[in-house]
C-alpha cells in the first residue's frame, strides 16, 4: 500500500528546495515523510535535527520542531534534546561527511550509548554542498574535485561502523528501492534505541558527472543494479556491490530510559 506524503508535514512555502535537479535526496526525504506518516507519531513531538551539507538542509522543509545544527554535530544536539525531554521523538538527518567525517566521534558514542535517536544518513559518496570533494564513503578510484587523479583510499562502511559501535537497529537501502527504504526508516522510528538507516543516495551534479553517472535515471538504476540483498551474502560488505537489507535489529538497554531509572532510585 502506498502512503501519501501529508502536505501538513511539509513547509510548502519553503519550496522549491535547494537540491539540484536529479538529486536523490528528495527520494530519501519523501521516504522519511511517508515513514513518519505511517508511524502515527504525534507531529508536535517530533524534533527533526540535521547537520551541515545538502542533507542538512532537509530540516528546513519539514513541518516539525526543526533544528539545523553545526557541521558534524546533529547527534550531539539531538542527544541533549532527547535526554532533556524523553517524550520527544528525535529524528536526525545527516550526510556521509557530516556523520562519518567531522561528526564521527559523536556517531560512535551515540551508537555506543544506544540512545533512542532515529538517524537517517543520506550517503551520496561526496561533499555536494561545497562542490564535490571526497567524503569518507567515496569509492576507491573514483574522481572528485580533491581526487583529480582518482581516490586511493578504501571507503568507510557506515553501517558496519554503526554495528561495531553498538547501534541496535541498522539497515541500508538505496534510492533505487524507496519502498524498502521507507520500511526500514519506519522500523527505525519505532525501534527503541539507536537506529541508523543508511540511505544510499545520488549526487548527479558533483559525483555523477565526474564518474560516468551523469544521467539521474541511469544513476538510480545503477544503484539498484549494484544492490546485493543481505540474505545472499550474509555480510554488510561486498566488493561486488552495495549490500542492502536489515543488518541488525536487537533489543538492548536504552540510554535515556536507563538514566531516568537511575534518577528514580536516587531522587530525593
Amino acid at each position, binding site marked *: 500500500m502506498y502512503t501519501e506524503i501529508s502536505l501538513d508535514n511539509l513547509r510548502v512555502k519553503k519550496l522549491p528546495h535547494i537540491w539540484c535537479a536529479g538529486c536523490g535526496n528528495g527520494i530519501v526525504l519523501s521516504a522519511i515523510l511517508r515513514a513518519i506518516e505511517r508511524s502515527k507519531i504525534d507531529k508536535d513531538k517530533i524534533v527533526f535535527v540535521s547537520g551541515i551539507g545538502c542533507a542538512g538542509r532537509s530540516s528546513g522543509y519539514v513541518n516539525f520542531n*526543526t*533544528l539545523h545544527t553545526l557541521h558534524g*554535530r546533529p*547527534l550531539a544536539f539531538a*542527544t541533549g534534546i532527547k535526554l532533556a525531554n524523553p517524550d*520527544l521523538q528525535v529524528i536526525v538527518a545527516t550526510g556521509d561527511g557530516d556523520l562519518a567525517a567531522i561528526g564521527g566521534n559523536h556517531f560512535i558514542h551515540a551508537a555506543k550509548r544506544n540512545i533512542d535517536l532515529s538517524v537517517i544518513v543520506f550517503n551520496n559518496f561526496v561533499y555536494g554542498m561545497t562542490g564535490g570533494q571526497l567524503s569518507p564513503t567515496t569509492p576507491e578510484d573514483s574522481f572528485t574535485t580533491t581526487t583529480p587523479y582518482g581516490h586511493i583510499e578504501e571507503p568507510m562502511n557506515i553501517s558496519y561502523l554503526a554495528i561495531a559501535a553498538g547501534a541496535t537497529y541498522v539497515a541500508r537501502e538505496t534510492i533505487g528501492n524507496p519502498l524498502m527504504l521507507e520500511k526500514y526508516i519506519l522500523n527505525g522510528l519505532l525501534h527503541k534505541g539507536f537506529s541508523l538507516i543508511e540511505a544510499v543516495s545520488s549526487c548527479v551534479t558533483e559525483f555523477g558527472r565526474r564518474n560516468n553517472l551523469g544521467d539521474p535515471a541511469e544513476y538510480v538504476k545503477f544503484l539498484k543494479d549494484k544492490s546485493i540483498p543481505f540474505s545472499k551474502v550474509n555480510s554488510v560488505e561486498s566488493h561486488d556491490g552495495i549490500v542492502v537489507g536489515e543488518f541488525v535489529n536487537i533489543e538492548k538497554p536504552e540510554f535515556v530510559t536507563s538514566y531516568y531509572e537511575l534518577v528514580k532510585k536516587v531522587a530525593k
Partner: protein
Amino acid sequence: MKERLMSGNEAVAIGAIKAGCRFFAGYPITPSTDLAERMSKLLPEVGGAFIQMEDELGSIGAIIGASLTGSKAMTATSGPGFSLMQEGIGFASFSEIPIVVVDVQRVGPSTGIPTYPSQGDIMQARWGTHGSHPIIALYPSSVKESYDLIFTAFNFSEKYRVPVIFISDEVIGHMREKITVDDSHVVFERKKPEVPKEDYLPFDSRYEVPPLANFGEGYRFHVTGLTHDETGFPTSDPVKAERLMERLQRKILNHLDEIFLYETFLVEDADILIVSYGVVARSAKEAILELREKGLKVGLFRPITIWPSSEKVLKDLASNRRVFVFEMNLGQYVHEVERIVKKKVEFYGKENGEIISPEEIESCILKSL
C-alpha cells in the same frame, strides 16, 4: 539558611541547581572536572540530567539541544575545551539559545599547566567565535561570589537569550571559603510566547528579546546557525541580516545598567586606580591596604562583568587618576581599558602559573612613582 565551607567550583554547582539548572553535559578537564563530578551527583537527586559527552564539541551541542526543550543547561570546561566550544557558543549566540558555559582558567596556551591558574581566556571569551555578536561574561573573585554570580549567569542567559560565559580560575575554583546556602536569590524564568501557534515568530524583531517556545509544545519553529529572518529560516537578504545583527547588539548593549556589574574598593580619594579582576583583585586589595599605610592613595576597580564593558563607568573612574592594569596574562583586558580611557595605562602581567602577589603589585606601583 546554612553555612558551609566549600570550593568555588562546588559553589557554582550548588548555585546552578538552585538557579534551576537541570541539564549538564561536559567532558573532564582540569581544573573544572570537580564541577562536573558535583553536577553528576546533584542533578539526579533533583530529577535533572547529567551526561559525560565524548568531547567538548559534543558537550556544547548537547546543552544547546537541551535548552531548546526548555531546560536550563550548563557545561564547564577549561582553556583547551573552551577553544573547542567556540563553534557552539557562536551558534547559541546567533540562534539566541540560553546556555551557561563555565570556564575555569588554567595556564595556556595549548595544554599549558593544567593545575595552575591564569587569566588567559579573557579575550577568547569575547572574540573566540567568528562573526560579530555580543556576549556576557562574568567573573567572580571569591567562593561566595561564585555562588551568587551563577544565579546572575542563568538569569542573564534566560532573560537576554544569550550564552553567558562564567569565567573562573584554578584558584577561585578550588579554594574553600565559607558561604551561606539559602533560597534568597531571585530566579528568572524564560519568556514563553503568548501568541497563537501560527503567529509565532521565534526571532520577532518587534521585541528586543523575542519569547522562546520549547520544542514539543506545538510551535514547530526552525532554528539554524545560518543568517535567518524573523521566522527563523535562512536568508541572505542584507536588510534582514542587518536587522538581526543590530537587534543582537541592542538587546545586550542597551541594558548595561543591569548587566554591567563591578566593585570599587577605596577609590573615592584615590590618585591611582588599579584595574584587576578575579583572583588578582584579591592581591590588589591587600596591596592597596599596604600602599595606603605608606601614604599612597590607591583604589581598585574590579569588573565583575568582564564583557560587555561599560565605557561610562570606567571613563569616570579613570579620569584624573593614573591607571594600572594587573592580570595573569600578557595583556588582554588592558586593551579594553586603553580603548576606553584613551590615555597611558601601566600594565603588569604574567602567565606562568603564579598568582600576581600583593608584593608584585606594590613594587610595580612604587617603582613607577
